[in-house]
Every structure is written in C-alpha cells, then in structure tokens.
C-alpha cells in the first residue's frame, strides 16, 4: 500500500514537473505546477503529515498558483510563449547542478537505508502542532514573529502597489 501510494503521488509530481519545465506556454506550465504541488501534498499524506498536506493544498494549490496565474495573465500580452533557445546556454550549468543534487540525494537515501518505513495510521498531527505554537519553549516566539513579519510586509506591499496621485502633498 505504501509503495503504491508513493509511486502514485510521485508519478503525478514528476509528470507535472516535466510538463512544467518543457511546455511552451507559460499558462500550461502554471497549471502543471498545480499537479506538482498536489503530488507533493500526497507524499506528505503518505508520510503521515496530514496538516502539512492539507496546508500544501490549501495554500499552494489553492492560493499561490492562482496568484501566479493572475501574474502571468496580467503581465504577458500574448499569454507568454517562452523562447527556450535563449536559455539553452544555461543547460550545461543546470545539468551539472542537477548531477550534484542527485549525488546529495544518494547521500540522503544512504542515511535512511535500513530504516523500516511503514504506512502510518493517519493520526492527526494538528493537535501536537497547535500545542507547539503556544508552548513558550516550542514555537511560540517564531509564531509571534511571523505575525509581525506579515504585518510589515503587508504594509510594504500596499505601499509599493498603491498608485500615487499627482500633486498630493507629501506623497
């Protein structure tokens, strides 16, 4: 069962990734990204991280990709056909990088080898995570800092995006 779920979700993620990287139209690429993120969410579920998987779908599949699509549609006039030829020079560099990463992942696999993986009974993790968020020695401070970060960045984003009226004093 575990193997089947892993292969299933990994295949979705991988296929989505290939389409995303090689499709000519940037809009199609963005839709393929949805498949990638969904596949990864499934992998989280497989590993028993239910909250993470749900958040992944809620935020990334539901939010970030939609934003991305909007950005693509608003910023490119002809729904963006990418000229791949311009980036062909980057291919060897990226290939080397990819080869290096592959070796790193082999390292990861070497570490985890021998550890028996079993399909975890889907047990809600949200309880424990919620506890950590209010535990002063857990993630209380990072949680609070995150709210300050969001406040400052929101104000900044509005300031950047706001249209300036000509002739307003101090503006």
């Amino acid at each position, binding site marked *: 069962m575990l193997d089947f779920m892993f292969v299933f979700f990994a295949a979705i993620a991988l296929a989505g990734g290939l389409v995303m990287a090689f499709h000519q139209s940037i809009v199609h690429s963005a839709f393929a990204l949805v498949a990638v993120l969904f596949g990864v969410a499934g992998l989280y579920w497989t590993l028993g991280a239910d909250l993470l998987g749900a958040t992944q779908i809620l935020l990334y599949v539901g939010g970030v990709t939609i934003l991305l699509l909007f950005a693509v549609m608003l910023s490119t006039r002809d729904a963006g056909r990418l000229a791949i030829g311009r980036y062909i020079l980057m291919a060897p560099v990226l290939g080397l990088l990819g080869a290096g990463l592959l070796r790193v992942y*082999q*390292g*990861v696999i070497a570490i985890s080898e021998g550890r028996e993986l079993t399909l975890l009974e889907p047990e809600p993790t949200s309880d424990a995570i919620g506890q950590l968020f209010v535990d002063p020695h857990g993630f209380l*401070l990072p949680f609070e800092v995150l709210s300050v*970060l969001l*406040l400052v960045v929101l104000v900044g984003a509005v300031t950047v995006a706001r249209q300036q009226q000509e002739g307003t004093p101090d503006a």
Partner: protein
Amino acid sequence: MSPEMLTDLQALMPEIWLVAAIVVTLTADLILGHGRTARTVTGVVALAGVVGALLALGEQDTSVPARAFGVLSVDGYAWFFRALIISATGLVILYGIIFRGLEDRTRNEFHPMLLGAAFGGCLLVSTDNLLMLVLGMEMLSLPSYIMAGWQKRERRSAEAALKYLVYGALASGLMLFGFSLLYGMSGSLWLPDIGLAITEQWELGGELGRMLVVGSTVLVFAGIGFKVAAFPFHFWAPDVYEGSPAPVTAMLAVASKAAGIGLLLRFVDGAFLGMVVSEDWLARLGSVTAVIAAVTMTYGNITAVKQTNVKRLLAYSSIAHAGFLLMGVAVMLTATGDDRAAVETGQQATLMYLATYYFGTLGAFGCLMALADRFGAEDLDDYEGLGRQAPWIGVMFVVFLASLTGLPPTAGFVGKWFVFRAAISSGLDWLAVVAALNAAVALFYYMKIPVSLFLRGGDQPRVADVPGLGLVPRVANLSILVLAAATVWLGLMFDDLIAWVNASLL
C-alpha cells in the same frame, strides 16, 4: 504569567521596543494622515523606539548567557550585534528624515519597514535555531526589498528593488534547501546537534555522507554569502547600492551586513566548531573560505577603481570589506584541534573589523547624503571643489575614508591590524599579503574622493540646492560629527573596544 516567562520577555525587551514602535508609527500614520505633523510624529516615534531599544539593551546583563523561548541565545555575542544593528537603524532613520528622495512615497511607512528590518536582524544574530534563522532572515530581507524600491519615480530604484528581490529570493531558497538537508541529517533544528551530525557524516558516512555535508554547506553559505555580498554572490550589490535611496544603502551596507556576519559566525561556530570536530573537513572548509575571502576583497577593490559614481564606489568597497571580514572566519576554521584560543582570535578579529567598519561606513554614507542633499552631487565630477565650500563635511568625509582604508590614527587601522595579526598567527600568511596589497589599492580609489573635494575644481562657489538648514539636518550633521570623533578616538584609545569585543565572543 510564570516568572520564567517574564525573564524570557525581559531578554527580548529591545525587540519589543522595536515592534511597539512599528505599531505606533502605523497607528499614528492612520490617525494623523499625511501632513507635516504626521511626518514629525512618526519620525520621533521611530527614533524613540530605537532609543528605548538601546536603553533596554543597556540594562541587559549578558555576563551569564541565557536562553529565551527555547530558540534565542541571549549572550554577549547577540548583545554586540544587536547594539550595532539597532544603533545603525537609529542613524538611518535620522538620515531618512533629511533625505528628500523618500518623498516619492509617503515617508510614514518607511519607518515601519526600517524597524522591521532591524527587528529581523536582531533575531537573526541571537538565535541558534534553524527555524528562527529563516524567519529572522526573511524579516530582515523582505522589508529591505521594499525599501530598495522606495523612490518610485527613479528608474534605478525600481531596478534595484527588482534585482534585490529576485536574487534574494533565489538565495533564500538555496539556504532553505541547505537547511532542509541539515535537518534531514540531524533531525534537529538546533545548531550544536547539527554540528554533531555533520562530523558524523563526514567521518563515517563515506563518500555519500561527504557529498551531503558539502552540498548542504555550499547551499547555506550561498544564502549567507548573498547577505554579506561575498564573491561569487555579490553581483546584486553594486546595482542595488547605487539604485536604492542613500539611507537604505547605508542600512544594507551596515546593518544587513552586520546581521549576515553575525549569522555566519554563529553558524560556523555552532555547526562546524562544536564539541566534536572533523579536522579534515575543517581544513578543507578553512582553505576554501580563505580563497573566497581573498577573491572577494580583490574583486571588490579592483572593480571599485574604475567607478565614478560615489555610491557605486562605496558598494564595491563594501564587497571588498566583506572579504576582510571573511578573513577572520577563515582563521576560525583553520584553527586545528581543540585550539579554542585560535578560534577566538579569528572571531575577535572579525568583530573588531566589523565595529570599525560600522563607524567608517555609516559616517561615509552620512557625508555622501549631506553633499547630495545640499549640492545634488553624486559623481566624482560633481564633488569638485565642494570640500572648500562645506569644509566640515569634507574633512569628516576624509576621516571616514581614511578609516575605511585603514590608515592610522583611525579606527579602521585597528580593525585591519587585528585581521592581519589573526591571519598571520594562524599561518595564513599569503592571505595577509593579499589583504595588504588590497589595502594599497583601496587607498588609491578612496583618495580620489578627497582629491575631488579639495584639490580640483575652480574657485567659483557652487549653488547650494537648499539655502537654509533646518533643525534635523543639523542633528544629522552632529551625528556625523560624533561618528567622526568616535572614529579617531577608537583609533587612538581602543582598549575599551577590545574589552567589549572580548566580552562578546561566542
């Protein structure tokens, strides 16, 4: 509230002041609108927040390292960096008030950004927890991207913001990836645990374990190298420094760089120089860091020679200074065995250099802004003859540049001396030679500014853009004067600085 929690909160008082100032400036902006009053009030509140944070910092006793909230390590080291970052932010607020380019957008929202970045920097230098590191990094970076593009009507400013954002996001992503590998290796977010896992993987993990260590280290160093503008992650710096409004550039060159160095030293100390070290790994990492330091300073200095825009010149020189700061890190890593003294020599050199760099750079940017504000001068050609018209600013500019070059009797000399001494004491003689040659190159291009200010140009006085001097420019000029006095004073009487730095070592 438990007494324990109260102590934790007390350790965080400076940061609480900063956040309170963010909230009050935003509220004041909301209530008072965009008039003159609002501008004054937000500026005063922001400054008050910084002063309050500094006072709270002054009350902290860090002789016994304490932990707060399980993720912060409130020790002398954090104290040193927080003091640098918060006080630099105060000066930048002051500069921001006189700098006229910020009026493209409302100035009132500029202060929350600045305070937010300072808040992030403070967290970044006081934590040894990966999650908090990432948060601090973003808290510092995201407002910085916004501030870089503050001059909406200026093309270069928008370009700076976009470049900074794109490269910054890439660097953050690489660093996060590195962190995820580290977490995967050790199963812990805490740097000392990660240090153990790194040693274990390097010694026992075979070739693949080594790959993992190298891969994660390279990724993390890429993220940190971006923040401190070290070669080969420097390429954003010149454009961003030139395009950003001058107060923001000062913030990036001083507070942001200090936070990056603070993070780097703590990371290196926690993850590589922990209880159990692998000498073989450290030797390799140390020699690579030494080479990066040499290349960074040489690249920065050689490229700075050609520059005619003073801000761009200071940007390249700031890349060169990152190289000097990395020298201390290289010394830390080349210290072999249980030689804690050698590690401390390297740390001490970096902290000394950073403290002296702080005065020189903040002062130089203050002078640059004063000249830009009064005469609209930004290029070396525009500077001709200005020294005779604004002798005070001119002379102080020379003092700061002398300090950045490392000439006695200024603070910069002390900083350079410590770095050189550390390099030679740990057998990195070649690095010391490269650094000495670089200092000579630096002298050449730094001195182009005084030559322009005092020796070139006709006698006819230039028309000042601003006829009258208000109160705030006077205060700003006074703060530059204080920086200049401190630069000379620390060059002569550096005992206190050494004592302070020694109390701040990890």
